Structures are given as C-alpha cells and as structure tokens.
C-alpha cells in the first residue's frame, strides 16, 4: 500500500535517481517509474510536470529542448550538481529511515 502522502514525499527522490545516469524526457520518466516500481508508482502527467518544474526551479534538475535529426524536438531533464548532492542526502535519509522502520516494526527491506 502506497499512501498518497508517502507518494507525494518520495516521488521527487525517485525522479532524481532516475535522472542520475542520464538525461530523460517526461514521458520516459513516467514509463520508468511505473515499470521499475512494478506499477506501484503511477504518476499522471497532471502531477509529473508541475513536479518537474518545481525541481527545476529549485535548481536540482535542468530542462533543455534537444533537437535530433529526423525527430521533433523534446525536452530532456538533466540532474545538476546541486541535484546530485540533494539526491545523496535524501538517499542517506531514507536508508536511515528504512533501517529504523526495520528495527522497530520488524520489517526487513530488500
């Protein structure tokens, strides 16, 4: 069960990690979220783009229109140095948190 609050809180970190290896565009991000979470995390366009713009405004990601020959232009998002630091921080926070949950609630995490 993935509550709304939890989703709202975690999606930004998920997006940052998806952008870590390479820049991606919005649709790709939504597909990957769904696929990697095996359908648990579904983010509608109505939620995704505002979130992307907020992350961008916060200086964690950068959006750029990229034109490739033979294709129409697309907007790709790239993780910034700032974003990398933030992602590391959030990861540490989550790891700590998850360990704490594990210790207290006896939930083991994979």
């Amino acid at each position, binding site marked *: 069960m993935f509550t709304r609050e939890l989703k709202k809180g975690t999606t930004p970190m998920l997006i940052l990690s998806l952008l870590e290896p390479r820049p991606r565009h*919005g649709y790709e991000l939504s597909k990957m979220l769904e696929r990697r979470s095996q359908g648990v995390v579904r983010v509608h366009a109505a939620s995704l783009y505002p979130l992307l713009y907020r992350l961008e405004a916060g200086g964690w990601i950068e959006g750029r229109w990229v034109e490739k020959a033979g294709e129409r232009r697309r907007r790709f998002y790239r993780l910034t140095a700032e974003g990398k630091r*933030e992602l590391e921080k959030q990861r540490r926070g989550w790891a700590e948190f998850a360990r704490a949950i594990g210790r207290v609630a006896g939930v083991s995490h994979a």
Partner: protein
Amino acid sequence: MPDWSAEATRWLAGARLAPADEADIAEELAQHLEERYQGLLSGGVTESEAIRLTMAELDGERAGGLMRDLAAARRHPHSPPVPLGATSGGGRLGRLWGDLRFGARLLRRTPGFTIVAALTLALGIGANTTIFSIINALLLRPLDGVARPGELVQVGRTQAGQGFDTFSWPDYLDFRDGARTLSGVAGRFIAPAHLSTGGASERVRVDLVSGNYFQVLGIPTGHGRLLLPDDDGAPGAHPVAVLSDALWRRRFGSDPGVIGATVRLNGHPFTIIGVTAGRFHGTDTGGLTDLFVPMAMLGTLRPEAATFLTRREAVWLTIFGRLAPGATVAQAQAEIGAIARHLQQQFPETNAERGVTVAGGLGFEPGTRGEIRTFSGILLGVVGLVLLIACANVANLLLARGAARAREMAVRASLGASRGRLVSQLLAEGLVLAALGGAGGFVLGVWSLRLVLRLPVFATGGGLTIDAGPDPLVLAFTAGAMLLSGVLFALPPAFRASRVDLVTALKLGAPGAGGGRSRLRGALVVAQLALSLVLLVASGLYVRTLAALYRVEPGFDPERVLVATVDVGLQGYDDARARTFFDELERRVAALPGVERASLGYMLPLGGGGWDTRAFPAERAAAPDDPGIKSDVNVVSPDYFATVGMPVVRGRGFDGTDRAGAPLVAVVNEALAGKLWPGADPVGRRFRLGAQGTEVLEVVGVVRTARYRSLLEAPRSFFYRPFAQLPQSDMTLHVRVGESVDPGTFVPAVRRVVADLDGDLPLDRVQTLAGRLDRSVGSQRTAATLVALYGLLALALAAVGLYGSMAYLVSRRTREIGVRMALGAEASRIRRQVLGAALRIAALGGVIGLAVAVPAGRLLRSQLFGVTPADPVTLVAVVIVLGAVSLAAAYVPARRATRVDPVVALQSE
C-alpha cells in the same frame, strides 16, 4: 486521433501562465499525451479506452492544486520546490516568498481554522491599534501645522519650587528680551469671546497672543497674512484677528473674500487679516482655537483685565518658546532660571519664590502629560495582554493542527529537510496568518476607535478633543504588532512540530506520540489562565471604581437643576449694572412657569477649579507663620442653598438683609467650622480673610460639607458669601424645575429671558447639573469603561481558548477512557477524574495569575477610587468566573468522552 496539443492548451488555460511558458509546457505535455495514447494503442487497447486513459492523465489527484503549483513554479522560476525540505536553490528571499505562498495555500485549504485564527488575532491586534491611535494623537503626534515641533519648549512658573504655572506680562517681556538660548519666546491667553457677524452670534475660543506667536511656531499662512509683532503695539490700537482654518471653513464657507471684513468680538469690531493654513488649531492638544488676536487687545476683549499688561503681580500668561539652533532644554532652563532669579531680587514683593521650569514639547502641560502617559501605559499593558491571550489561542490552534501534520513533517524531514527549514516554513505560515489578522485588526481597530472616541472624555466638551485618525505611525505600529504576534504564536508550535521523531511519527499516528506537545499545551493553558486572571482583576477593579464613582454623594441634589453661565463682563458692565442685571435675571427666570426656584452662584459645582482664600479666626491675632485655613469660597444669591438642595443645618442662609453696606456675612461648611472653631458653635463667630486682612465675616449659618471641585476630592473647607456683598461679572444661573420635568427643556425659555435683558449676551456652559456631574468623572469613567471592556474581550478570548485547550487535552484521553469504560469503570468516576485533572491545571494558572495580579494591581492605585488594589470582592469574583469557565471547558468534553461507545473509542486509532 484527438488533438492533444489543443487538449494540453485547454488544460493549461486555468493556470494563467505567461504565453511563452504556456507554449513550451503545452508542447511538452502534448507530446507526453500523444506518446501515452500511441503506447496504449500499440499495447492492444481499444481506441476509445486509449483516449479515456490518456485523458485521465490530466485529471490526476488534486489537479486544481497542481495547476496552481504549476502556475507558481513557472511564474517564479527561482522559487524553491516548497514541499520538499530544500536546503539550497533560490535566494533567501525567494525561499521566503515560496514559504509564504505555500503557507497561504495551506491556510486556504482549511478555511475554518484560518478564519477563527485570523479573527482571534484581529481582535487582539485591533485593540492595540485603537489604543495606540489614541496615544499617538495625544502624546506622539506633534501639533498640527507647527514647524519643527521638536524645538519647542514650554516655560512654566514655579512657586517655591512647585507647580507649572502662568506668568505676568512684564515677566514675559523680560524672558523674551533676555533669552539667548531661545530664538523666540511667545505667550498666549485663552479668552473665550462672543463672535458676531451680521445676525448670527456664537461663543468661540479666542487666543490672545504675543505678536511673535506665529513666527515662533512657524505657522504657514493660508490667506491674507498672520499676526506680526507690529500688530501687538499700543493697547487697543490694532483690532485685527486671524481665523483658524476650521472656523474659516465652518463659519465663513471658505470664502477668501473674508479678508478685510469686520466681525464683532464681545461687541467690538475686529478686522480679519488672515487665515492660518492647514490644520493648525492652537497650541493645546486637547482644545481647538478659533481666532487669534494680538495681546494688546486684551483690555478691549476683557475690560477687567485691562491693567494686566503692566502689572507684575498678575500671573495669567502661558509662555512657550523655540530653542535657538544648537541650544538644549537644559541650557534654556539655566538661562531662563537665571533671569527669574534676577527678577526675584529686583521685584521682591511680586516675584519672591517665583522660579521657572522649561520643559520640552508643547500640547499638554508636563503634569497632564505625565498623567496621560501613566494611563496610556496601563491601557497599552491591558491591550498587550489581550493580544498575548489571542496569541496563546492561536498557538493552541496551531499546536492541534501541528499534531495533525506530524506525519507530513516527518516525511519532509526524512526527505532531508533540515529542522531550520521546517521551522521557517511553519513560521512563514504563521506570518501569513498574522498578516490576515493584522489587516483585519487594522480595520477593526479603526472602527472601534470611532466607538472609543464617543466615550465621555473625548466627546465634545469632555476635555480632550482629539483627531485620532490613522496615520503612518499607527500603520507601522499595527504592522509591528502583527509581526511580533506572528512570531509569538507561530514559533513555539513550529519548534514543537519540527522536532520530528521520525520513528514514532511515521508509525502513522501512534498513540502517545507528542507527549511533549500536550505538556506544551498544558503550559499554554496555564499561561492563558494566568494572563486572563491578571486582566480580569484589573478590569474588575475598574468596574468597582466605576460603581464607586456612581455611589459618591455630591452633598447636593443634582436632579432637575439646569445651570447656565452669563458673563456680563464681556459686554463691559460695571458692578452696579451687573447687580441689577443678575437680580432681574434671577427674578424673571424664577417666574417662568414650571420653574421651582432660580438663583445665582459664582462657582460652577464640580468645575475642577476653585477660588481659594485663607481664613483666620477673628478673635485672635494670627501668629506670623500661621498659614490659616485654606478654604474655597463661592458667591451666591439667597435662594442658592434651596435651589441646589443643600440644607442649612445651623443658623440661617442668606436673605435680603445681607445687602451691600450691611455687615459682611458668610455661611460656612462643617469642615471649615470644625477647623476654625473645633467643637464650638460657629454661628455668630467671625473670621478674617488673610492673616492681616481687613475683611471680617460673620458666620450666619452652617451647611453640610459637599463635593466642590471634583466628585473625588477629600472633604474641603468652604464658605459662601452673598452676591449682594461681593458682585461678580460672571455668574451661573441655577434653575430648579418642577417634579418630573426635564430641566433641559427650559433652555430656550432661559435664553429668551437673557436675550430680552441684553441681546448681545451669550449664554455659556448651559447644562443640567446631573449631566455635569456625569461629565466631571468623565475621564475616570472613560478609563474604567475602556479597561473593563478590554477585560471582557480578554475573558471572551480566554474562555474560547481555554475551552479549546481543555477539550483537546480531554479528547486525547478518549481512547484511555474507552478502555477503562470497557473494563467496567463508572462514567461518573471517570468524569470526576477528568475534571479533577483539568481543575488542577486551572488552579495552577489561577495561583500564578493571582501572584502576578495582586502586585500588578498596585500599579493601578492612582487610578482607583473607593477600592483597594487587593480588593477581595474583585479577586473572589474573578476566581469564580475563571473557575466556572475552566470547569465548563473540561466538563463538556469529559461527558462526551464517557458517553462514547468503548468500541468506537478503541477504534479511534
């Protein structure tokens, strides 16, 4: 295939983005939708199903809120992603802006909470705005229209080092010509006069002023010209007048052609030479001057004072000056003091012991300013407490809300938001709330100011006519109160809420989480109770003072008596003519149908002032250092005692035999008789006025001691002399009317009688004696009413707050109560326990409150009348009221808790 680009644009329309942004986003969104659509189709979904699923992308949860996010994020490209605990990105200012917007959004989502909290704050801030507006007008705002008011000083006469009083004209000239530390010294004398222009006539306030008056004050000219030193030349030589802007508008319809016109003051022609500019209305904060006339016209307006300009013993002139560049008040004090000492040596018979005090500022004399400052301080303290209570209420509300948002905080903290970040976010939310409260408070404050200004002391004729409209300083004060209260009520809950314990908080609201929070709430309840108790005690003391003020026996019967003053001196009557006039006036008014009696008295009862003399028993010579008995005197006609309902308890009142030329007689009050001849019958005894005085009066009667100058005075020695033996030019007509008649209805008839006798004589200070008595305690009543009202406001706020906090404390135990009920506990026993716990908290607050209230009450001592600061009745009443409120606040939720089905209670997690 649907037109996804059009869909995206339509969807974005609500966000009202900049066109360039909108095009970009629409393009990106359209691509997304199209790919989604194509993806679904290639996955084997039917076309209609694909369209439905694609469209669903756009109505994600809370699409409306996200639209706003979107709009906000795009419109302010540098603002941070607020819901996350960002530690970087965007400037400090941008982050604050983002926090504020996020706070506003959250508040909009809970309108009930927002309205209650903002209203509570508005009440507290509004009370402060009202009181500050009054203080601003009375103490802070410089006199309207005066140039560089900071340089102005007032000069007061001391007698044997005491007081702050008026000077003689010759003294003034010596100061004016001798002072180097003052660039100018001016004087003024208030001479109410009768203004007639053609038909209409009215009584106006004329200030007779030295020729340099306007120059010293630096008043700009509105029309024509203002007075110059040359206008103040030989006595009576320049009958000219300057109008105040207000009189010019009211009486002359703002007609610039009035310059050069002639008006009559007390029947004498004066030429209008100019109008002051703007709102200048003289040098008194609490009074409005209508006309300014050169001092040299004193003898024309006041024939009896004609010789004052040459007599050094007559002290009547109010003096002020402007500091020379670089000079200080202390230097001026030293210099003027030296001149005064020189005058003491030069004129020992008039100037012995005459000194000076130089004080900064103009508007009120220093003593009055001090009193106003004291009371202002008390009022500010009271409304400050009201605001504190309001803040405590809001803090409580925020704490309850904080409990509900514990999980949100935990999630944010787990995402890396620092504590400082969370605190600043919550503070921003508090600031938004404070801004709402501040705006509401300003409106409320300005509105209630209008009500407050209707209280007796501020009403026309009540002594303080002020223009207390809101100005930038008031606005700044309100903003300050708003910011301070925002920090006060938001900081503790913010720190509490941000102290997230991830483990417990994320266990999704485990019971027992936030034990510290309930301790904080308990502390808030105790503080609220203590503050309310302090305020209620103050309020109670003022209510008791008010009641005592109404219980005071004035010593005469003020009902059914009309008084009105006539000053025949204004028309230049001599003694003989004055006596004839007043005898005739008394006779004619007494003959009016419905009038029981009419008589004359020199002193208006409870007028604040008095005419004092020193009385010495005539049977022995006074010792050289004997100060005699300080006593007030009044001059009355024979029917006076019967008219005002003052029984003669021994001997007789005055009658027709007490004529001019007959032996001088007096009626004394019991206080004077007891001091002059302790234990002896005073009737038939004689006393002298002044140690070496030649006037010796024989006592013919004794009346009871009454209240003379003010209702609150200590028993005062007093005696009366017959009008026939000591005629005065201004006498007050006292008219007692028949049973069940309103004395006010006799005003036109009395006016007619006066007009028949002399058409040019104005009737002044027309009022009922009962109304006068009410007004004489106007300032005390105003004070008491204000404090009592704000005390009630505090009680209402505190009661609501207490109820909320108590109810919350009890509701937190719902589950525990459910368990115990399920285990068979009796409801009544549980209720008793809950109530007991609540009362323990209430008792703690009460004890702390009392410990503060009793010493704080002593600060009010000078303001109280007929009640001590530690008045047991007040204390007990306040404790009972607060106890009852606390009990009710605990009982209702306790009862509800015990009625809950245990199953439901247990499921409450």
